[in-house]
């Protein structure tokens, strides 16, 4: 058909069947296009950080009337410079699923009935009081999220730790980046990355460690690809256990056997030392050498406890330790050829190349998660490639405010907004700012996440309030923890926006506002805090998670600690919280500044963001007169750790002969409770699947789309096979995305965790397969 514009207009005017006329004549809608009633046709744009991952893209939300109707990337936000990913571009549609929870519900005679909000809040307060009286203060718990806003987490910590006096505050970020935190604490003594995303434009080499950035951090991945295209001499190495989109886009894909990244990292250090690529000036002045306990266990039993005991060692002792990790020896353990190990070492060792390492869940969800972080830092420390533009060991975060709310506010059992409960000075500071007696704050941590759900199952915890997370999909070894939550005499409160398997086990459901229906702040991977206003009203009785906690706190008699009005509370909370971080190491921007800018990085000192920490040229907290100052540690040094290779908690054997690896896909955010309600995303990725290596599939006699039963010692799930699909695992491994509540893969996974960080390993357990 030949149709130029003039001819087209003629044919439209002649009443042809072409339905595009709505574009020319007002009042005619396009097919399938739901037009907002009474829309003025105009959009006003307001800034917000994206709701989804830890990248922390700036988005502009297009508002028409009281509805969000469009999204574009915020060109003023340095993170994404106007680009988003498919989730971000469609993020506002997550507000409008038909089954939004709009009313509070209480379980009565086994059935959920709608009640006024005030009644539900009364019940919660009474239940907290009653449970504490009957079973002690540590029988009530709060389980929050890296998707909590900063004020959400702050008031939760203040109520539970400061007022109720229990350290039973945890967040799903324990499942997500606890190993990143302990990695930072053990190597540097202070949390969060020294570098920033600008490293991407400066680096010559990228090594991604067990990290499928093309799907999980797509905006940063394309920033990396754009830099490679512009500079031409950039090399991207994908170092992983499975072939993914990231492998396909990389210059080289190197596969290793699960858990052997520990051995390979040590072999890289061996090569650096034996080829004399060590930056001696840096190592002598800025590092010290240490070792800790070995053979440290896996935490699969209740009440497991572990405390590392660091010992100083000499460089010579460290060098001797590395003798077990020659490239040739490690080739046998890891399946990575000695040639490839030497190649990776040569990239790190080349003094003319700036190297950035990226990682996320591959290194965090690892039974030796803390160790592998230490070992990758070792590589950067030995070569002095750290804290300078382009030289950056960079731990990416999964959730939009895992850093902001969980790590910085300290919503973990041992933590406070500044420091830890074990430290007297930190307790005193918190008590002073919170206006509570210092004796309120218990110096002993209670339960980390896995142990908290075990305590719920055992009956040590009787009341749990869950906000902004979906543990009945995400807990490993899920069957035990769901059965625990369902036991008689357990009381579960869930604040959420849509029905989920977690609201299914709730005794009270509170309707929460979602993202831009409330004011708040998120903190992203590169120490950037981003504020968003309440841009559209929430539906029905929905209430912000922060305000829900404040309402309950007041019912428990803590009016004095929670005095703010509904029109001002976010700003007031921010200014109170900011006092914890006063000083050049962590100063944060004022409320006014946050409202104005598309994100501000901390330390924010004298009106300036700090791009590279520990580097005297960039970081005002450094002692003058030196080039680097690792001020997190008392000696001002970064610690190089001798950490051995140890295997996973459960490896394939005769009976259970496959590795099970789990993770995400680009379309869906975590358990899909939001993204599955976004039409484009659900239609693109309607259900989960199991990726099988083509040869294994042939042995099993299955083709793509046929059902496979995945069986572990804990449970089983039957789902469709995907062969040569989006990702391809090596022989002997299967991969399952966890977003789909119809296929609860976490009934199959194992609740083993890193003994130091207590973060579970979702990437490694043993299963067998049956054609179903």
């Amino acid at each position, binding site marked *: 058909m030949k149709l130029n*514009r003039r001819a087209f207009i003629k044919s439209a005017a002649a009443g042809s069947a072409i339905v*595009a006329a709505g574009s*020319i004549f007002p009042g005619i809608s396009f097919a399938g*296009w739901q037009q907002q009633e009474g829309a003025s*046709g105009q959009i006003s744009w307001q800034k917000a950080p994206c709701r989804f991952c830890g990248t922390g893209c700036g988005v502009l939300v297009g508002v028409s009337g009281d509805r969000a109707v469009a999204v574009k990337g915020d060109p003023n936000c340095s993170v994404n410079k*106007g680009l988003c990913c498919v989730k971000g571009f469609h993020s506002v549609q997550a507000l409008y699923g*038909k089954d939004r929870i709009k009313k509070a519900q209480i379980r009565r005679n086994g059935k959920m009935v709608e009640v006024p909000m005030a009644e539900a809040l009364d019940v919660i307060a009474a239940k907290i009081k009653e449970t504490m009286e009957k079973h002690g203060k540590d029988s009530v718990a709060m389980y929050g999220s890296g998707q909590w806003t900063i004020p959400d987490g702050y008031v939760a910590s203040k109520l539970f730790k400061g007022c109720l006096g229990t350290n039973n505050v945890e967040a799903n970020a324990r499942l997500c980046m606890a190993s990143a935190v302990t990695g930072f604490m053990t190597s540097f003594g202070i949390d969060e990355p020294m570098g920033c995303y600008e490293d991407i434009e400066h680096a010559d080499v990228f090594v991604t460690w067990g990290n499928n950035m093309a799907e999980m951090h797509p905006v940063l991945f394309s920033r990396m690809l754009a830099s490679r295209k*512009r500079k031409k001499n950039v090399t991207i190495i994908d170092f992983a256990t499975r072939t993914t989109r990231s492998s396909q886009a990389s210059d080289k894909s190197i596969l290793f056997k699960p858990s052997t990244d520990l051995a390979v990292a040590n072999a890289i250090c061996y090569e650096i030392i034996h080829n004399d690529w060590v930056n001696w000036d840096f190592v002598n002045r800025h590092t010290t050498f240490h070792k800790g306990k070995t053979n440290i266990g896996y935490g699969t039993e209740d009440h497991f406890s572990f405390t590392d005991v660091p010992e100083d060692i000499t460089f010579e002792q460290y060098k001797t330790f590395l003798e077990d990790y020659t490239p040739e020896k490690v080739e046998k353990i890891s399946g990575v050829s000695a040639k490839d190990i030497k190649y990776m070492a040569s990239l790190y060792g080349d003094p003319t190349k700036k190297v950035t390492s990226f990682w996320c869940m591959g290194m965090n969800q690892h039974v030796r998660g803390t160790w592998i972080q230490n070992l990758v830092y070792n590589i950067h420390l030995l070569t002095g490639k750290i804290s300078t533009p382009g030289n950056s060991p960079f731990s990416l975060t999964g959730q939009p405010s895992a850093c902001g709310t969980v790590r910085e506010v300290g919503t973990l059992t041992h933590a406070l907004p500044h420091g830890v409960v074990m430290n007297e000075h930190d307790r005193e500071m918190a008590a002073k700012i919170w206006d509570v007696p210092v004796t309120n704050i218990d110096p002993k941590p209670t339960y980390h996440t896995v142990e908290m759900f075990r305590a719920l199952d055992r009956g040590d915890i009787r009341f749990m309030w869950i906000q902004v997370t979906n543990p009945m999909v995400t807990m490993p070894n899920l069957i035990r923890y769901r059965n625990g939550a369902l036991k008689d005499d357990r009381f579960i409160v869930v604040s959420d926006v849509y029905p989920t398997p977690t609201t299914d086990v709730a005794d009270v459901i509170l309707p929460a506002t979602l993202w831009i229906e409330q004011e708040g702040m998120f903190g992203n991977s590169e120490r950037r805090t981003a504020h968003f206003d309440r841009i559209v009203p929430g539906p029905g009785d929905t209430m912000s998670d922060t305000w829900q906690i404040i309402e309950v706190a007041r019912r428990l008699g803590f009016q004095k600690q929670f005095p703010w009005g509904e029109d001002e509370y976010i700003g007031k909370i921010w200014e109170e919280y900011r006092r914890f971080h006063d000083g050049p190491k962590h100063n944060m921007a004022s409320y006014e500044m946050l409202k104005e800018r598309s994100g501000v990085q901390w330390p924010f000192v004298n009106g300036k963001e700090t791009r590279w920490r520990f580097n005297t040229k960039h970081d005002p907290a450094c002692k003058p007169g030196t080039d680097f100052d690792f001020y997190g540690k008392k000696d001002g040094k970064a610690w190089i750790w001798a950490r051995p290779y140890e295997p996973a908690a459960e490896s394939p054997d005769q009976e259970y002969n496959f590795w099970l690896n789990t993770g995400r896909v680009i379309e869906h955010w975590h358990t899909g409770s939001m993204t599955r309600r976004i039409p*484009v995303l659900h239609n693109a990725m309607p259900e989960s699947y199991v990726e099988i290596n083509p040869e294994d599939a042939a042995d099993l006699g299955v083709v793509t789309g046929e059902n496979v039963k995945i069986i572990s010692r804990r449970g089983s799930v039957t789902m469709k096979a995907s062969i040569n699909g*989006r990702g391809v695992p090596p022989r002997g491994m299967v991969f399952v995305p966890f977003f789909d509540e119809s296929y609860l893969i976490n009934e199959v996974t194992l609740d083993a965790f890193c003994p130091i960080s207590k973060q579970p390993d979702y990437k490694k357990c043993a299963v067998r397969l049956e054609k179903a």
Partner: protein
Amino acid sequence: MALPANGAPDIAQGFDSDGEKIFNRFNETPLAATTGTDGTRTLNTYYELRQYPGSPPRVPHDVPDSFSGDTLKCLSCHGRGGYDVTLEAYAPVTPHPEYENCSQCHVPRREEKLFVETDWQSINPPLLGRSEMGGSPPPIPHTLQLREDCIACHTGNASVAEIRVEHASRGNCRQCHVPMIATEPRQEFTRNK
């Protein structure tokens, strides 16, 4: 024809809303390819793939699950366009070929049904033909963000019939067409004295 990286040290890449893209594309595209009118895309098929004015379109054709092998890269069709025999269609040309991680924003549809019904609504796309005076060149009704390259979308066989220009031989589009975003409030001049 990209600006030499060291040619203008004080000038940022991408200044003037990536204005050089138009000239580069114009230079690279044979005249015959800019004047074709054989395609069948209409605004209706265009907006059917979008959730709101300016959203990234979904991919309307099958994409192999294992996509991303070199020969299958999106840009081999969508970089410069051309006729695809199997789909019997002209491939639309992307206005932002510098982004290579296409599936970051564009996803196919593998399922027609929704997970749950949605209450999503958006505003109608901008109207066409909004010349300020009879016969004057219409302003650009959409933002230039990610859509700076006029030639890619407004010329040739793959372009949308209603918005195809008939004077593609002129390569300096913004000589006559200036942005006046239809979905944003109109700014009137007031003297700031």
